[in-house]
């Protein structure tokens, strides 16, 4: 299986990036948040709900509902439907499936939506019921949830490559700077390196500002063929390439790389671009150390050089490597599965030039990545996409 066998995403575009502003706790249901996102998609695209003939949904808190229940709930009649439970990789995976669906004309307009609510106890319940391996062999061990699992990965990674907390902290501090430009970010006060280092430990070496804040919210976009977008007079983003991988490097005793490292060559080859060409990068930042890993695995530096990379670059909106320009999950909040969409949706706005206060000047080429499902001892799912705005 070589790259040349993959069909290009010719004629596939993405439009109408939508964010329903997050709140820390919500008494509304996940279905409410998803409904708001659908409504916003229809309004922003200037279409009728009945024009949507494909839907792809991701959520942790829909209870017993899946995508099909939502069709009746929202009065949709679709001919293509998917429910993607891939956590932080859901946006990339959803985009890939929707792209092929519209390309093959199985559907014309696919709404890709992720939304979750956050009741006072939802986060604990999500942790408790995450997966079978997690239930059997992780959660009963201190019930630290993802914090403890990533703490083990972070500790091993930091020790193996000589990474300090300060190195990792640069990512979090830069994202907070970006978040201060985003009126919808839940974190609204500046974060200094001193504050980052002095934060309370959660699960060593993970401290408070290494963690995302669980919240409620929704994100969405539409996938369609270029001619559909043109007929609707919708500004659209061209999809250039994607990768997706699950359970990569299973023989590594501990995770020091994600599945991106397996497929990164193909990602750039399919898009016909180099890492240096990118104007904006949106990584999956459930923990800053995972972002550092992505800088290596997505080809911005070599394995073990992530710390040096962040020392040498300015990751803010105005910096030389604009990264997670909305503030990312670390500063905006993690609205469940919508966290997977956050970077991609912000990336779409960047290349469309509609990012407003977080806009990077002249951004036309972007990368967004996803990472998810710490089923047992490592994150299993990884993905990435490169896309270009109308100006490119």
């Amino acid at each position, binding site marked *: 299986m070589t790259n040349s066998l993959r069909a290009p995403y010719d004629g596939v575009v993405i439009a109408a990036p939508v964010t329903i502003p997050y709140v820390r706790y919500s008494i509304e249901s996940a279905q409410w948040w998803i409904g708001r996102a659908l409504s916003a998609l229809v309004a922003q695209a200037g279409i009728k709900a009945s024009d949507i003939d494909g839907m792809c949904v991701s959520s942790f808190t829909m209870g017993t509902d899946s995508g099909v229940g939502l069709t009746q709930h929202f009065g949709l009649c679709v001919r293509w439907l998917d429910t993607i439970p891939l956590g932080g990789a859901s946006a990339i995976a959803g985009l890939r499936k929707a792209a092929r669906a519209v390309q093959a004309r199985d559907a014309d307009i696919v709404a890709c939506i992720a939304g979750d609510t956050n009741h006072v106890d939802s986060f604990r319940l999500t942790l408790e019921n995450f997966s079978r391996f997690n239930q059997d062999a*992780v*959660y009963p061990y201190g019930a630290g949830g993802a914090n403890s699992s990533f703490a083990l990965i972070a500790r091993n990674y930091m020790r193996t490559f000589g990474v300090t907390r300060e190195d990792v902290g640069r990512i979090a501090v830069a994202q907070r700077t970006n978040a201060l430009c985003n009126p919808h970010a839940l974190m609204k006060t500046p974060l200094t390196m001193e504050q980052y280092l002095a934060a309370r430990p959660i699960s060593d070496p993970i401290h408070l500002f290494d963690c995302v804040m669980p919240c409620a919210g929704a994100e969405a976009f539409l996938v369609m063929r270029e001619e559909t977008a043109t007929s609707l007079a919708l500004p659209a983003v061209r999809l250039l390439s994607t990768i997706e991988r699950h359970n990569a490097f299973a023989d590594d005793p*501990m995770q020091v790389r994600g599945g991106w490292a397996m497929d990164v060559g193909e990602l750039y080859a399919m898009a016909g671009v180099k890492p240096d060409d990118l104007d904006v990068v949106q990584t999956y930042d459930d923990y800053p150390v995972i972002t550092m890993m992505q800088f290596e695995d997505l080809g911005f530096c070599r394995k073990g050089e992530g710390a040096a990379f962040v020392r040498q670059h300015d990751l803010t909106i105005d910096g030389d490597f604009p990264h997670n320009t909305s503030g990312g999950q670390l500063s905006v909040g993690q609205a469940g599965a919508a966290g997977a969409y956050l970077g991609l949706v912000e990336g779409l706005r960047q290349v469309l030039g509609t990012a407003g206060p977080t806009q990077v000047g002249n951004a036309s080429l972007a990368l967004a990545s996803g990472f998810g499902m710490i089923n047992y001892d490592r994150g299993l799912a990884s993905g990435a996409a490169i896309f270009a705005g109308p100006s490119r």
Partner: protein
Amino acid sequence: MIDPIKPPRRKNPLLRTRLPALPPRPRSRTSHGFTRAAAEGRFVLQRCEACGCFAYPAREACPSCLFDGLTFVEAPRRGMLLAETTARVPSDVYFRERAPWRIGLVKMDCGPTIVAHLHADCVEGAAVRMSLQLDKSGQAVAFAHPEGETANMADDKQWREMTADPKFRRVLVTNGRSVIGQEAAVALRAAGAKTVFVGVAEPWRPFAGENLLRGQDGIEIVTLDAADEKVVADLAADIGGKVDILVNTTEYVRPGGLLDRRGTSIARDEIDQAYLGFINLAQAFGPAMRMRGADGINSSAAWVNILSVYALANWPAFGAYSASQAACLSLSHSLRAELRPGGVRVMNLFTGPVDTEWFQTVPPPKVAPRAIAQAIVSGLKGGLEEMYVGDVAEEIRQRLAANPKALERELDR
């Protein structure tokens, strides 16, 4: 290096007793292969019958060759601690109250990596020895110990959650008239129990070994006839709030099955002592024990039953007695479930014929009462749920597993 735990101070009566919470309970059905092993103190992993590779966590198919024949087999316990972390603000009540809680990822020499609770003396990058333990929810968890012995090892805070160590705890041995009860009292006291209350029924009747118990420091004789509802309730009213471990040594052995006995009076005595006695003890002492499962160093911790292995398979020579033991075994499972909310363990010790007067004509091997006493202590220290003491008990267990019908025929002699 762990500092030894200190004897608990007297309780401050102005403070509310902390109620027990339990660690996360749900497990897949397959995962209970570990529960079964942990109950007996064995360390097992799944191994593929086709390709021989070890797997963890519990799976339904081999991750190397997809064969569905994964069996739980004894596995090498050695591994290496790859990384550790200390959970400081868990979202779960049980762990939040016990935070900081230390866990780690262990690469086993035989292949799999295991997330495990860590003994405080485990060092990152060093070898560890793995065991399966039952946590307060009664579910199996992996526990990593340092490879060698370290000072005050059993006093480790996390380890003590996995055990019912008698150290500093107060124990009620229900029947001090029996040799087993006397040996158990002495052994528990030697294991660091603060006080061993020893029940004596009909104190107006002298009994052999009485002088061993009287006047011993830390051993207190109390009036207790398990079969007498009121006496049991009265004793619980006195000491129920400070019984941390209850060792049910009720003993009523009489030979005979059905046809060679006349009437039901002996059977009634068997039921009175063993079965109704169990109920009286449980009703009187169980509720307070269930409340006190998280009451500090000397929290309530365990209930021990000494049962005949013939509870599992009837021995017609002692047929009615076997049946009374089977009834108690069944009751113990109910008790285990009912004490679960308190995190209180129920340990059953199965023995073959004991070297006491009622098995006088039974040929050896017989179990020495002292061996039972030692097993009680080691079982409590190891946090076990099921023990088979002596060669006969172990043999019956294996023969039952191999072919219950063959065992039934062979016991009929």
